[in-house]
């Protein structure tokens, strides 16, 4: 048992740090660190900076343009990006549709889509969930009927993250309604500019426009946009779920946010001293920090296993990772006290340089708390994750 990074790992970390220091634009970094809202261009700019370096898709095989990093190196990269405060590289292209295309797409699909994903030429979004299918994804109802060289798609997707910016959507659609629900599903790529597609915003409880409903009204999709075989889409979707998901723990970001929480709690005062030194508040922060250290160690245990295959441990990481993120936002808001009430959307959206109350750090935090309630719901709710642990690990 040796729980230190090797010298090679440390050298790699230095390289990454140097890259980030030289290349992460200060305005983006400030937006991320200060919890302001990111725009389309912010994401694209950072993605392309990474792409120029060959680092936009750390998990991709070298043949498709990946950097050929080990699991530990990928972990270090994620950690360092989070530590610096980079915008995220959105997963929909790089980590979600791309692995499916690599594994099940044909040569033409690989040649066309993968380089475009790598360079963020297309903005992808995900068309899985539907209004009636939350945790029960396979019950989806959007249909694709084959008519000549096209599928005619009808139905509705929902919770489509940042779909308002998207060029492409990958969808699970029902191509056979006569068989068991998992067996009639296909995996389809759809150009968002196709006639018949309507995107309608869903406003979140912090009034951010982050997700959408996407309606399909007789949308014509060329058959060459089918991935793999018709009616095998559920297999492809499940393949993705078995993919590397240790990043879901979001340890790096939580470490940065912990330091931010401490900053807030150092500035706020209670009984004449920094709130962080209040025994009760301090104990809560300390307990959370310890949980985070434990989670980081658990992540490292998972990724350094010699025979590492992503497995149901990801459910543990998802549950605790999301809870830690939520508790961080909760303690930030608690630290603020009444200063958490003002809601300054103009500042958050960049229409005003400073918050109306003069407290830029405080302004986004209530919204951040409310918004982050989603983390225990999306990506398979924490209840679903417990079902997975129950079945796959405990054998109950």
């Amino acid at each position, binding site marked *: 048992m040796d729980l230190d990074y090797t010298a090679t790992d440390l050298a790699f970390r230095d390289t990454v740090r140097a890259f980030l220091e030289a290349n992460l634009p200060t305005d983006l970094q400030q937006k991320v660190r200060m919890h302001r809202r990111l725009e389309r261009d912010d994401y694209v700019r950072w993605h392309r900076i990474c792409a120029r370096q060959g680092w936009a898709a750390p998990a991709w095989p070298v043949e498709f343009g990946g950097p050929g990093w080990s699991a530990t190196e990928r972990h270090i990269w994620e950690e360092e990006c989070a530590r610096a405060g980079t915008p995220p590289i959105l997963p929909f292209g790089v980590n979600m549709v791309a692995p499916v295309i690599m594994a099940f797409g044909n040569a033409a699909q690989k040649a066309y889509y993968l380089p475009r994903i790598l360079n963020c030429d297309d903005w992808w979004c995900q068309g899985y969930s539907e209004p009636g299918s939350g945790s*029960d994804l396979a019950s989806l109802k959007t249909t694709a009927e084959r008519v000549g060289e096209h599928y005619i798609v009808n139905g509705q997707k929902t919770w489509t993250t940042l779909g308002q910016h998207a060029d492409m959507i990958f969808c699970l659609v029902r191509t056979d309604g006569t068989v068991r629900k998992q067996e009639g599903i296909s995996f389809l790529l759809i150009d968002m500019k196709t006639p018949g597609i309507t995107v309608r915003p869903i406003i979140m409880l912090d009034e951010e426009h982050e997700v959408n409903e996407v309606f399909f009204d007789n949308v014509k999709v060329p058959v060459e946009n089918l991935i793999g075989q018709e009616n095998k889409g559920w297999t492809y979707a499940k393949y993705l779920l078995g993919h590397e998901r240790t990043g879901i723990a979001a340890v790096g970001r939580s470490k940065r946010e912990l330091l931010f929480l401490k900053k807030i709690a150092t500035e706020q005062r209670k009984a004449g001293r920094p709130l962080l030194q209040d025994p009760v508040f301090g104990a809560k922060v300390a307990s959370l920090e310890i949980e985070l250290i434990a989670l980081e160690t658990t992540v490292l245990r998972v990724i350094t296993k010699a025979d590492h295959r992503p497995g149901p441990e990801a459910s543990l990481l998802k549950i605790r990772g999301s809870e830690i993120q939520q508790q961080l936002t909760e303690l930030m808001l*608690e630290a603020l006290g009444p200063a958490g009430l*003002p809601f300054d959307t103009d500042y958050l959206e960049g229409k005003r340089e400073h918050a109306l*109350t003069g407290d830029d750090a405080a302004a986004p935090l209530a919204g951040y708390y409310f*918004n982050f309630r989603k983390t225990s719901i999306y990506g398979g709710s924490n*209840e679903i994750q417990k079902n997975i642990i129950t079945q796959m690990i405990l054998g109950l």
Partner: protein
Amino acid sequence: MDFQLREEQQQFADALRRWVAKDYHHEARRQIIHSASGVSDSAWQTLVELGMTALPVPEAQGGFSGGAVDLWVVMQELGRGLVVEPYFATVWGTQFLQLAGNQAALLEQVASGELKLACALGEQQSRHDLYDIRTSAVRDDAGYCLNGAKSVVIHGAQAGALIVSARDAGAPDGICLFVVPATAAGLQRRDYRTIDGQRAATVELCDVRVPASALLAQGSAAADLLEQAADYGVTLLCAEAVGAMDALFAATLDYLKTRKQFGTAIGSFQALQHRMADMYIHLEQARSMAMLAAARQDGGDAAERRRAVSAAKVRIGQAAKFIGQQAVQLHGGMGVTDELPAAHLFKRLTMIDLTLGDVDHHLQRFAAQPAFAEHA
């Protein structure tokens, strides 16, 4: 011992509930909170007509001499309906005026609905400590001169007069409380939305001159008044929170019964059922504690009042966090959108915890009471 409402209390409650259902439903409320003023004059007029502004005012000033329990009934309904009008701020301010005495003229205006009040107590640095006051009051021949800034003054910009706490520059240990007209020269307000759909303001006082008659209390009397009125304010918030939790609980239960997943209502899953049972227990315990706090307002025992009020704010804060977070979780994706009342109830409940002392603040106050140290 009797926990039932009197008949006329039940009548207020019913009248308010009917009004909310008809005129203050989710869509109507959305329009109000996104309007320029953030409040509704016609809603206020209705509250006046229903006697709600007269309720806390003594009969001598044209009111109904309603006690804390009466106001508790009203606040519970306003909480259930997520009403964002400046009612809490006004009733709370009324309590300052009543406790101070000699404020008949203002009280009459409150009773008639002409005057709204707000309490400008907190400051940038004070967090939950209402005694952490930097605003200064300097006595001169004409009265007092006030300087300072008050932050997150609930409905501060909608009020016609403000209760202002200040530190007596001549006796730095001494607190003064003033009632200051919103139109006073040198008083500036910056109005903004709060994330729960209410309004608050930053209030700046720059050489604001008030006559000696504006002084409500000073020294230890002011400190006592401030504490007693704050306790009253907490009791109102607790009642509002219980109403909001009631509504959120009911909405979640309804969702569990109707939302289907895996071919069955999600309310048939035992893990969710037990979560809902936990929410029920939180709700009933919070309700008990809020009732006790209201009942301890009108009696004379300050020690009992302090204990009950802080206990209530703690228990309601705990319940509101659990019920709020779990209600959102059980609603799934819909719970995190702006579209359902559930999310708005959750936001309001969260902000109530940050107002007038959070769980830790009141836990500490409870533990600092002499009774806490008594032992076998």
